[in-house]
């Protein structure tokens, strides 16, 4: 899927596809701000709005990786700013486990990222996605979605 896909940009050149789980209170609003500020970032970014980074079960990050994402970004509120007080702290722990597992199982943990992006940090959002795209270009297409057992 990854290599053949042309994606929304219509270009034939491979660009990493990034799925973003963004908390509605901070990171999603930050992404909105990046948009209205006309900041440029990859069109291969697929945002999914969630209520809280703490609601992102690692299962969904894994699913994205297996279904063709080259990288997954989870965006939450800065520590201390969680709308639900502690969701992002819980996300941080789940995410640490996920990265450790991926690393031990031959999946580059740099494909997944947890970042704190507030509603006012449109610039930080765009910079994060761009930096992630750069890194994923170096890593190349995600082999996992192709190799899954056939």
């Amino acid at each position, binding site marked *: 899927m990854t290599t053949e896909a042309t994606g929304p940009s219509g270009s034939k050149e491979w660009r990493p596809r990034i799925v973003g789980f963004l908390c509605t209170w901070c990171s999603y609003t930050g992404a909105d701000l990046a948009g209205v500020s006309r900041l440029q970032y990859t069109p291969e970014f697929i945002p999914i709005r969630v209520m809280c980074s703490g609601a992102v079960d690692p299962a969904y990050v*894994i699913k994205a990786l297996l279904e063709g994402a080259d990288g997954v970004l989870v965006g939450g509120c800065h520590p201390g700013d969680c709308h639900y007080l502690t969701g992002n702290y819980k996300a941080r722990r789940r995410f640490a486990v996920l990265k450790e597992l991926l690393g031990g199982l*031959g999946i580059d943990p740099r494909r997944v990222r947890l970042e704190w992006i507030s509603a006012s940090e449109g610039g930080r959002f765009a910079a994060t996605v761009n930096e992630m795209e750069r890194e994923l270009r170096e890593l190349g297409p995600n082999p996992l979605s192709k190799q899954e057992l056939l």
Partner: protein
Amino acid sequence: MVYAFRWALATGEDRQSAARRLLQEALRRGAVGAVLVPAELPGGAGVAYALATRPERLASAVPLARAMPQFGPQDLVRATEPGGGPMRIAAVLRPCEARAVVELVKLKQVDPSGLVLISPDCPGTVELEDYAASRGVPEKDLPLRLACRICRRPVAGKDVDVALGTAGARDDELLLIAQTERGRAFLEAAGAQAIELPHGRAHAVARLVARGEEAHDAQERASRERFGRPGALESALATCIKCMNCMNVCPVCYCKECLLYTDAFNPTAGALADKARRRGVVRVPTETAQFHLTRMAHVMTACVMCGQCESACPTGVPLLEMYAGVNRRVQDLFDYEAGRSVEEAPPFTDFREDEDFS
């Protein structure tokens, strides 16, 4: 504070029979109302857990069986009630299973107030299907399960009420170490004889642990080497038929409603066709990698490395070998060890504001 007791072997009696007699005596004297213990099945078919309330029905109990029947901790979940229920239960579980019970206590699945946990020093177990054939086979030739060959904690953890000791014990006795007041009361009520803790005990235990640590470290390195390679995961999971046995026998996998049974992870008819169209081909059953990775992400912080998952796998997926490369590292992230202590909060129920895992 620990209290040592002894249970003398009768003339010609082996340890297995003496341990059985201890449990029977405990029932007879009313030290507990029931005993959960491995018992031999009729016709040499193997062993299964039995929950016995009458001492005479314990004739086939094998508390020191060199096999680990499945569902011991899960049976405790079903046998105990909040507040302890009408009767106190003594449960003879392997040290790894007892660690699983400690996890379940913290996750509020088992109320320990009505329990007396008993764990033997564990020399390792064989697969259930090897049990009958392994009778009479010399110790050193037993085909131990991988989980047992790489076990770092072959003796009772600190929350176990009674450690049933062989390490440091004399040949003519069972050494019983009460590690809690409840364990002490149980042993006194059962009629065990209080003694001084034998000097050799601590050293003998340390030696068992050190040997286990060494074997575990070697396996951890080998596992990381094997599974750290791209593509290794897929080939390891290639034979998975997604029967979910590994999940059903897992003692620390406890949710009543499982995410993995929802439609999101089980394509309905149209969704499977969609996936085939998108990818060109799709393996059936699908979502095996999704299943295993999710399972690991969910339970690895609580995994006690009992290996029941691997034993229950009908197609030989090397689950435990896979887990061995990541289990300790995952728990180390939180300075946690599954089953070590009821006082340590399970990592997913806790956090610190200033922690940083990057």
